[in-house]
């Protein structure tokens, strides 16, 4: 019971921190533009953790749980592919081919170059 309450409190604290960072991210996005609010919020969250103002260990356990189930939040947006049936019918296979080939080719190139370019972890 104690463990459950502690985890719950930790989760609430994490949610509040994330909400605050996202709120500030929205302000940055409306003033600066360039990046969406969530990416400004991500950078701010990382920066706040780096300052030590937030309890890293407590947040870490809650974030691990969020990250585990995270892909689910993208699912409704992805179902939006249903809205493009006309487009898919006319040029769909071309879009799919271009999308898949470009992604796999770029992924391969970057992974190959990165694995040779980045210093070995023991060298750092």
């Amino acid at each position: 019971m104690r463990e459950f309450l502690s985890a719950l409190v930790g989760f609430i604290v994490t949610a509040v921190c994330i909400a605050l960072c996202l709120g500030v991210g929205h302000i940055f996005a409306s003033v600066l533009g360039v990046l969406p609010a969530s990416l400004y919020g991500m950078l701010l969250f990382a920066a706040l953790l780096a300052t030590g103002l937030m309890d890293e260990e407590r947040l870490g356990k809650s974030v691990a749980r969020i990250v585990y189930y995270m892909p689910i939040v993208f699912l409704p947006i992805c179902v939006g592919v249903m809205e493009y049936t006309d487009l898919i019918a006319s040029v769909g296979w071309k879009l799919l081919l271009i999308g898949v080939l470009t992604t796999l080719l770029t992924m391969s190139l970057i992974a190959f170059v990165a694995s040779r370019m980045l210093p070995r972890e023991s060298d750092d």
Partner: protein
Amino acid sequence: MIEALGFGLLTIAVFLFWMRIQKRADLLILNPLLFSLFCIVGVLTLMDIDYQRYMRGASYISFFVEPCVVALGYPLFKQLKMIGRQWRELVTLCLLAVFTVLTVSALLARWMGIEDWVIRSLVILCITTAIAMETSEALGGAPSLAALTVMIAGFTGSAFGMQWLMLMRIREPRAVGLAIGSTAHALGTATIARYSYESSAYASTALILCAIFTAIVAPLYIPFLLSL
């Protein structure tokens, strides 16, 4: 209200089902996101339910996209020192990714005889949706088409990225993270975060850098490329 709740619960139930299947089968290819998508689209199509009706319930789930992206700041924080030491390499790799995506997609589209306005929509495919749509509009393309191609890139990287890189015998976590983050954006980063925090941190870094570089480079580079 009940219908809306039902769609939300359907989404969660289908996803958790496929997560369990993947865990039991221990096969990465059984991507829960991809299989859940097939199931849900199949059910909605069979029951003749349009996307707007579905989103009335499922929007409660997609509301959490932004907070989840913010949460990815934690893996990024865990690797900050390491990333800071390698900033030159990271900037170089992300610039390489951006130019590769823009060039390959534009040239492939040209070769397939696709019209210019469609090319301007689909070349911005490997970055986060919000920036892709804005940049595509600035280029004279259609934001909705940009959103579609972003989904294709995200799915490709998320569903097949790790397996593809394993086939290429690339397992170094930083390289995997950079490759997936620079092509499959937030969707790929979210998927990879379940397997490796180190990869996720590099993917998050690539995601941000590539988004910034694309927003700056594309409006200049794409018109030049299309004029050749």
